[in-house]
């Protein structure tokens, strides 16, 4: 059994149609798992389901063997699951440091040492610590979003398109950071549009189409799979 897993999840938004159908995803500690697929496939929705932001009709979610299907999103955060949404993933009207402090909201006691760790990981944030996040560049903002999510020292980190809208160089940097985080024994689940690069650093991957698992395998297998190549990796 994997460290964090969603099994046969089916559900959608409110009373609308099912967006994900019997979708299963799992990730172990120290592993990077990518979720790929066309726009509107339900990748973000699957992540929201794992965090409890949408109600499932069926399926279950467990972390470390404990069933958390019935827990609220906040309680799942307490279980060590951190999520960086695709949009609006920072507090734009607050400073960099305040964003990190908010990430540590659930932590008791002093967290200055964790902030220092984040600054070591993302030196640019230390430089801009007192600047409003709304005034940072897109790439810097993604680092703030990642930093905020790391403040609770999560055991599972879910990233929805962490490299959206950043230049190739910054993208490589962000991926480097993500690999560093993985080495601290965190289970990382990410949705990515830059499929090739994502698979390159991923241990495993899933390809989702219309809310269902279509292909899955190790990063290498998916990269070399002709069907995946032709339809999702652009030849």
């Amino acid at each position, binding site marked *: 059994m994997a460290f964090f897993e969603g099994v046969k999840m089916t559900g959608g938004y409110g009373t609308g149609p099912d967006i994900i159908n019997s979708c299963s995803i799992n990730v172990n500690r120290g592993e990077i798992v990518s979720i790929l697929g066309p726009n509107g496939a339900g990748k973000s929705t699957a992540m929201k389901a794992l*965090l409890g932001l949408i109600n499932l009709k069926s399926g279950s979610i467990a972390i470390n063997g404990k069933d958390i299907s019935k827990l609220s999103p906040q309680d799942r955060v307490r279980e060590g699951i951190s999520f960086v949404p695709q949009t609006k993933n920072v507090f734009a*009207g607050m400073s960099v440091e305040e964003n990190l402090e908010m990430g540590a909201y659930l932590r008791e006691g002093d967290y200055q040492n964790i902030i220092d760790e984040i600054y070591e990981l993302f030196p640019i944030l230390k430089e801009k610590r007192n600047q409003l996040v709304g005034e940072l560049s897109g790439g810097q903002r993604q680092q703030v979003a990642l930093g905020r999510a790391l403040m609770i020292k999560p055991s599972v980190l879910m990233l929805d398109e962490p490299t959206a809208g950043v230049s190739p160089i910054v993208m490589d940097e962000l991926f480097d950071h993500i690999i560093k985080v993985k080495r601290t024994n965190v289970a990382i689940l990410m949705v990515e549009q830059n499929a090739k690069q994502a698979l390159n650093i991923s241990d495993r991957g899933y390809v989702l189409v219309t809310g269902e698992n279509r292909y899955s395998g190790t990063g290498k297998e998916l990269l070399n799979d002709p069907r995946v190549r032709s339809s999702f990796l652009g030849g």
Partner: protein
Amino acid sequence: MDFLNAIILLLNYIFVPALTYGSQLALGAIFVTIIYGILRFANFATGDMMAFGTMVTILITWYFQSIGISLGVLPTALLAIPFAIFFMIGYMLFVDKFVFRYYRVNKSPPVQLAMVSIGVMFVTQAVVRIIIGPSDRRFFDGEKFIIKAGEFKEMTGLNEGLAIKSSQVLTIFITLILVSILFWFLNKTKTGKSMRAYSDNEDLALLSGIDPKRVVMITWIIAGILATIGGALYGLDKSFKPFTYFNNMLPIFAAAIVGGIGNPFGAFLGGYVIAFSEIFITYAYKKFFMYILPESMEPETLVQLLSTDYKFAVSFSILVIVLLYRPNGIFKGKVL
């Protein structure tokens, strides 16, 4: 000498009154802006909630006076305000629990909540009128003036007197202290920052583990404090008439919008912008020009841009102009 007289004239009739009135508006505007920033609706009950808080202050003041408690030179109301605040916090939480919560839980659109607040306004208004009546009441006791106009003239030998009322000094002093504490709370404490985070990005605040119930509760507590103090200071300085409080909502909302709705520091400054504009535009400058111009050029009219009867037109015009040209307010800065 004439020049000094002219300055004293402006201080006496514009600067001191505007600073006082601005402080009173600022407290109301911060109240509006915090409710808007966190609960995301325009609270039309603001004015009447402030009237309610003032009424409670007055009732407690009367009680203290009846049993012979007083603060000497200071108004007894100052002693009553802390008790009134406790009562008002209870009132705010009560209204939230039985009225606003339902719509919040159902994720009603902001317009619906604003309509609901109009209902709360009518009920609050009615309760105030049933309990204390609609008439004008003065509840200021203690020493009325810090400097009297006559004394000032004698002291300085100028023609113009400068009168400073203790209610004016109290208003400015208490406002500055209260607002400093509030900004310290919002910018430096963990709870305050979590409120700003909730206002900034509600979903991400929830994902960070911030408890929305706590944020809402503290918002109403702050609202209770601001409503009581803002209302009582206005009543001490002028007089307490419930209808005036309802009318004051126009300049208060104008101040909140000038400052950029949702931005407490903007609302604070906005209060002064509105107060100074209102008084600048409705003041009759005839005497001022008589001091500074040679006799031959003395004005024959009052030199008043707008009669005081139309003072609300000033807030209204500012409101319209700001909404048209700077809908996010005229100040840059952190949104709550």
